């Protein structure tokens, strides 16, 4: 958001994201509001924001590998599962504190992601998408057939604590989750505007030309998968310690599809797009939750099935509408609004 008449007088200013004191004011007051929110916000809203933030971390990762690097991945739910299980096992079995387990589960998921991303060195597009679906099922199968993961029963990790203070409620977890989201967003946005981000986009837009510019395709594709899965792993760890129950049913292919849907609706190749997409789908889900009982009551002759599948129908409909009318997602709309705001009050 840049008002008319703000000009860049140096390259440093030209590449800055936050330019004017008004930007800083808005940013800081938003952060203060966010951190004070648990003091007056309702329990419902707080737990909604917690889940929203975890999805944002997952989709940020997906944005990096699919939106920026162009490698479509349907494995994000499985990598999130790797993070959730790693974190649970580390804290329950080995007594490692949550604060160490959080980055470690990201690294573990990243390492699995490098293996999962290896097919991208050979195949592209739809074929790679199929390969990542296969990886999803392999990961879930392994989780269900290992003893250390508690197979079908799952695991029960403890909420994190620091010096005797337990983060055992949604209000308390809110602080951890929101802080992690802020750090992860900051890192993703900056990474994507530096050398590595441009190398990713080079691979997405034209891998041959990227190679001629000196981009090592193998290294950067695997790096994209590592970073993406690191995000998923961190999100998985937060999820595990927020819900304090982990089992394989929380990480289905449907979840992975939902993340890809959030990405498409938000807009590929845009960090703000992640927020728009996640918010859109999550709000849609909440609306469905409110309306489906009413629907079941209004149409009793249809039984409970339409109410139960309303969520899927709404998701599919939203995807179809966006793919037809705004394939570049909400982020594109946002860009259009921003550039017209920059010119306001002039027409062009």
């Amino acid at each position, binding site marked *: 958001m840049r008002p008319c008449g703000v000009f860049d007088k140096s*390259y*440093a200013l*030209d*590449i800055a994201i936050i330019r004017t004191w008004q930007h800083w004011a808005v940013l800081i007051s938003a952060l203060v509001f966010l951190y004070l929110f648990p003091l007056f916000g309702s329990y419902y809203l707080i737990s909604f924001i917690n889940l929203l933030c975890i999805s944002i971390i997952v989709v940020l990762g997906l944005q990096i590998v699919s939106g920026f690097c162009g490698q479509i991945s349907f494995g994000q739910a499985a990598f999130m599962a790797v993070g959730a299980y790693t974190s649970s096992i580390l804290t329950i079995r080995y007594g490692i504190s949550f604060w160490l387990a959080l980055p470690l589960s990201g690294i573990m998921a990243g390492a699995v992601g490098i293996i999962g991303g290896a097919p991208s060195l050979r195949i592209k597009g739809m074929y790679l998408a199929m390969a990542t679906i296969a990886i999803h099922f392999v990961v879930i199968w392994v989780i269900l057939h290992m003893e250390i993961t508690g197979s079908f029963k799952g695991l029960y990790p403890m909420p994190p604590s620091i010096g005797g203070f337990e983060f055992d409620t949604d209000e308390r977890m809110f602080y951890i989750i929101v802080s992690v989201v802020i750090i992860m967003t*900051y*890192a*993703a946005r*900056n*990474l994507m*505007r*530096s*050398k*590595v*981000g*441009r*190398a990713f*986009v*080079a691979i*997405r*837009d*034209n891998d*041959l*030309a*990227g*190679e*001629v*510019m*000196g*981009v*090592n*395709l193998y290294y950067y594709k695997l*790096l994209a998968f590592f*970073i993406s899965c690191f995000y998923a792993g961190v999100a998985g760890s937060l999820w595990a310690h927020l819900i304090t129950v982990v089992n394989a049913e929380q990480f289905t292919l449907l979840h992975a599809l939902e993340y890809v849907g959030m990405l498409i609706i938000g807009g590929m*190749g845009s960090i703000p797009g992640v927020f728009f997409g996640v918010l859109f789908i999550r709000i849609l889900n909440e609306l469905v939750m409110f309306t489906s009982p009413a629907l079941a009551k209004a149409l009793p002759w249809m039984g409970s099935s339409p109410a139960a599948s309303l969520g899927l129908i709404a998701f599919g409909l939203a995807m179809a509408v966006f793919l037809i009318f705004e394939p570049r997602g909400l982020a594109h709309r946002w860009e259009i609004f921003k550039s017209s705001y920059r010119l306001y009050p002039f027409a062009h």
Partner: protein
Amino acid sequence: MSHRQHENRPVIRVRRLSLRFGGLEALSNVSVDVQEGEILAIIGPNGAGKTCFLNCINGFYHPYEGEILYRDKDLTRLKPHKIAALGLARTFQNIELFSGLTALDNLMSARHIHMRHGALLGCLFFGPTRKEEIAHRERVEEVIDLLEMESIRKKTVGSLPYGQRKKVDLARALCMDPALLLLDEPMAGMNVEEKEDMARFILDVYELKKIPIVLIEHDMDVVMDICHRIVVLDFGRKLAEGRAQDIKDDERVIRAYLGEA
């Protein structure tokens, strides 16, 4: 001509290069030297193997026989990104830009081989990475200035007209600070004014950097005007090599272009 002073020190030596696609011999037994500080044109009818020749030099194709030496370094089996890191830059016949990025970001992406800070510092951004970005931005702005593309700096290249995209393609190669420039038909599909502009830019670059330039071009007027030496390819073989005037009068070249009388 100044290039003659260095004529005995080839920058690129291509020796007995053969390239095959199944039964098709795209290049056979081609030997070419690129001298220090010269503009070398490669001409020939369609399908003569000109682009294949460039693709071999920058590592897209690996020849079936022969070798390519760049200042005594063997390029024959190297991957394209390794060859790029040695300072060999190229442009493409069909413009292979990063269409989702702005012209500026396209050029910044060409600074890849010169940038040192990896992912971790990139996440932090403030501090070393920001300093690096600004330092490289200054180099990019020099190229923008040279090629007169200030007005399209922040435009997404996918939306630019053809001539401008050609220019971004050349600028991107220049931003690599190359030691050798390979240009694949830089003037294809341009009108006379655009061609003149492009020829002027190529000469500007040559005057400024004194790097050897290998140029594939169909427009014989351009080739005669700006190139020091010409290599003629036909059906994957080297037909002739020499100064512009000699090539123009060469019997075999005329026959290759016009057919038998």
